[in-house]
């Protein structure tokens, strides 16, 4: 089905999540990369040795969550824009998400914007916590938002209300 829709299902995403204990510890990366393609920048970008070594460049990356610090280097390095950072410990009611963003204008820090799911539907509101657009990111900017806990597994994009 995924190869018809391009939209990962909930169970596909849940399979990529680390253990419950790890999720309660702090920020972690999730790679929504489900297809073997010849690509490895996630592993070369990671400074924490958290991406298991590739036997073949077509391997689907696997994260060693003992090493992953949730630093977010992979977020702007992934050519497929498939890496996200999740911090479920952000607050009682909200989860922090870091996502790649290659559009202009950039959202404003502290503004409230639409939180979009994998099909581009607005499923709630997101608060913009941080906007990183430094030169090292090479135009794949990194947006940090907080969203209600109930929707953090669905939110993977933002809308600035431009239709």
């Amino acid at each position, binding site marked *: 089905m995924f190869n018809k829709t391009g939209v990962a299902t909930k169970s596909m995403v849940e399979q990529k999540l680390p253990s419950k204990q790890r999720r309660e510890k702090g920020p972690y990366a999730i790679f*929504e990369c489900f297809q*073997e393609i*010849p690509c490895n920048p996630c592993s070369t970008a990671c400074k924490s040795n958290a991406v298991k070594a590739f036997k073949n*460049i077509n391997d689907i990356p696997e994260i060693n969550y003992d090493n992953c610090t949730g630093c977010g280097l992979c977020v702007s390095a992934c050519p497929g824009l498939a890496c996200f950072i999740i911090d479920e410990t952000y607050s009682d009611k909200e989860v922090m998400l870091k996502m790649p963003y290659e559009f202009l204008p950039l959202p404003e820090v502290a503004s409230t914007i639409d939180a979009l799911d994998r099909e*581009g539907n607005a499923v709630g509101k997101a608060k913009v916590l941080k906007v990183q657009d430094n030169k090292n990111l090479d135009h794949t900017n990194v947006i940090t938002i907080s969203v209600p806990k109930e929707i953090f597994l669905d939110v993977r994009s933002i809308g600035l209300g431009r239709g």
Partner: protein
Amino acid sequence: MLHTEIAIIGGGPAGMCAAIAAAGQGARVTLFDRGKRLGGQLVKQTHRFFGSEKEYAGTRGVDIAKILYDQIEKNKLIDVKTDATVLAFYNDGVITYEEGKSYKRMTSEKTIIAAGAAEKMLLFSNNDLPGVYGAGAVQTLMNEHGIVPGNNVLMVGAGNIGLIVSYQLMQAGVKVKAIIDAAPKIGGFLVHASKVRRLGVPILTSHTIKEAVGKEFVEGAVICELDEKWQPIPGADKKLDVDIICLAVGLSPQSELLRHTGCDMKYVPSLGGYVPLRDENLQTTASGVYVAGDSAEVEEASSAMVEGTIAGLSAAEALGYGRNVSDLKDSFKKDLNTLRAGAVGEKIRSGLKILNC
């Protein structure tokens, strides 16, 4: 008549890498491109590339073109001829070309043909209306000249080009109404599909275009759903309000110059059309004529760069240049096999098997 050791026809990713590799071994190279500058399709690619670090993974195509160009510019063994269209390759080895407005001739010891591919057209009513574009033309307008082609787009083709150009259109502020593909599944990398889906663009598989609507220019498009036998389902027509119909329905290798050389060619659909037989050094059955990149088989730019390198090293080695060239070549051959080793390389692998190489 002018003479060069290695003539390379086509200054895209394959040709540029061939020139760098051959000159790196000491050979004198002439690199032809019909464009005003080198880079081929790379200069229009604003997305980060896949592959490994050796093929500049994570770097945007347009920046890879700059990296390669800087190496070429510094190398005194490479003579670059831009705005130079190669016209013919004669039996006696004479290459004729139009440089600016003059007709010229050159001979070469070895020739590498890296002429790329051409976009395929699709048959449907009114497909000659202004507003029906090839994806390459849309990219040229937007990414080279900074001109948006229109306001609302129907993208035909959900391969990598259709998906990437849709994303680039959205970055330019253009609305993509839908991406359709006659195949029952998405042909491009699914990460690219997910990228456009999360921006709200529908991807309709098993759909094709029936008609472009409009008198003077495109004012809409009629699409329809296809059944499992790829036949239109009656009554399932939908009209979309679009002013641009962008076709990304595949590429065919540019084989004209290869035919001039008299090399053996074979029609292999999974490689894009007529392609030359070649050995592992990418030499065709015409002695001294090599092929690399999309002219050899329609594939990604990352493998075109590796093929260019292998062809360049092989041609230089055949002229007696270089030391340990075979070790170097083997490492690139290994890289090429690795790039093709996964599920998405199956199409190329099966095509090469038909070619027996």
